[in-house]
């Protein structure tokens, strides 16, 4: 091993493109370079590790399952490549061949604020690199896409899995799109999609920008067609530039806070949403007898938009739309709501003094 000790390293051509291990360190590609949230698949506020299989479900924070037909289970997995602790697993229960108009995929809708620096939709659009680890029981050429919010701009990418059940690292360079409308506010900025099997309506040529909603390329491997197939991804990173840098491991608290902009709950880690429990429940004491009581929920971070809220009572038999107090479950509703918090109020239900009203809740402002 050699050691070099110098005071400065300069670009030989007088520019600012000195590379280290293949990439040029700049302010924009150091901390905060990964536009993907929960790319290491460690945050699961909803399912306590249980699998989900319905269209629109979130197997992990920020990752959405989109499913038309077939049976596929998605969950956090403890199968992972070196340097990680989790992955996102898709298991196909029964093989299903999608029709031309059907699509199956997992995606992350990235907020426009977070990718505004890409400058897409205009001259000077920046190239980006998508990198990830993949492992599958199937081999061959797989596909995915990057789409804009309106689904009228698509970039289909492909990658090869050469060995079954072995982790492989993949990088995809995507030229910035100088056309189309790419939102840069709190709406969907862009969608990063891993195709699991989509019909011919979604086929496009890989490696170029296309008009319309595209997901894959003809002939790509479609895991959903094979009973018993498995497909894992982790270490997903989307960053500006043309060279993939090592995965940006953020601290757990940072990653959780990023996720909480889109979904948060009072439930303890590892407790499934909807569990009837008093542990970690929120509430307030009522210091005077009255017919109304409101529980003020202050969110951990400001949410992307005013969220949809579901709340449960904490006593046996409680259902959604309730809080608990004075030994009973009572009907309640959200009486005030905003991006920083909500008030969950019992509505015209007698409450005595010296008791508490409590509930568990979720707040969602997902994209």
């Amino acid at each position, binding site marked *: 091993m050699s050691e070099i000790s110098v005071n400065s390293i300069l670009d030989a051509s007088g520019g600012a493109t000195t590379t280290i291990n293949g990439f040029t360190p700049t302010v924009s590609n150091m901390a905060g370079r990964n536009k993907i949230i929960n790319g290491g698949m460690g945050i699961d506020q909803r399912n306590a590790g249980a699998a989900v299989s319905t269209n629109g479900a979130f197997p992990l924070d920020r990752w959405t399952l989109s499913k038309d037909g077939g049976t596929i289970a998605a969950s956090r997995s403890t199968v992972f490549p070196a340097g990680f602790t989790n992955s996102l697993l898709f298991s196909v229960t029964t093989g299903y061949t999608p029709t031309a108009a059907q699509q199956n995929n997992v995606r992350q809708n990235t907020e426009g604020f977070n990718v505004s620096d890409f400058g897409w939709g205009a001259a000077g659009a920046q190239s980006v690199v998508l990198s990830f680890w993949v492992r599958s029981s199937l081999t061959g050429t797989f596909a995915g896409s990057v789409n804009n919010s309106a689904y009228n701009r698509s970039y289909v990418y492909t990658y090869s899995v050469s060995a079954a059940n072995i982790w492989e690292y993949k990088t995809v360079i995507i030229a910035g799109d100088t056309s189309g409308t790419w939102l840069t506010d709190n709406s969907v900025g862009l969608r990063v999609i891993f195709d699991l099997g989509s019909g011919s309506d979604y086929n496009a040529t890989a490696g170029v920008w296309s008009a319309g909603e595209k997901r894959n390329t003809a002939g790509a491997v479609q895991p959903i067609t094979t009973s018993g197939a498995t497909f894992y991804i982790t270490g997903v990173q989307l960053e500006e530039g043309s060279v993939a840098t090592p995965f940006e491991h953020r601290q757990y608290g940072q990653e959780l806070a990023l996720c909480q902009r889109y979904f948060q709950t009072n439930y303890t880690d590892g407790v499934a949403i909807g569990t009837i429990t008093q542990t970690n429940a929120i509430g307030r004491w009522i210091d005077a007898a009255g017919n109304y009581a409101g529980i003020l929920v202050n969110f951990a971070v400001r949410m992307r938009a005013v969220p949809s809220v579901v709340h449960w009572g904490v006593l046996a038999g409680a259902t959604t739309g309730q809080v608990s107090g004075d030994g009973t479950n009572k009907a309640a*509703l959200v009486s005030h709501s905003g991006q920083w918090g909500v008030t969950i109020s019992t509505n*015209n239900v007698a409450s005595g003094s010296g008791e508490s009203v409590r509930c568990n809740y979720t707040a969602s402002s997902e994209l």
Partner: protein
Amino acid sequence: MTYKLNTYGITITRLVDNASIPADPANTDYANYLQWLAEGNTPEPADIPPEPTYQELRASAYPPAADFADAYYWAQKGNLALMEAYLENCDAVKLLYPK
């Protein structure tokens, strides 16, 4: 998917999971609700708030407790005028909102 309006109009309830959905255009659930409306669907009406009880009506109409305290003070000093006026006001409320 069906929805129900809420009594106070703050949110809409999505009945499949009783989610309270705010009327925020940036909320994707609300966008889905607007799409559902555009397809010709109609939400269930809000529950009609229960009529207030006579106790609730009287409680909001009685003269302030400070008036009673003042009247009590003067009554202890031998001046009953304020207490009589206070009781008359209470009687008027009871008459307005009978049991």
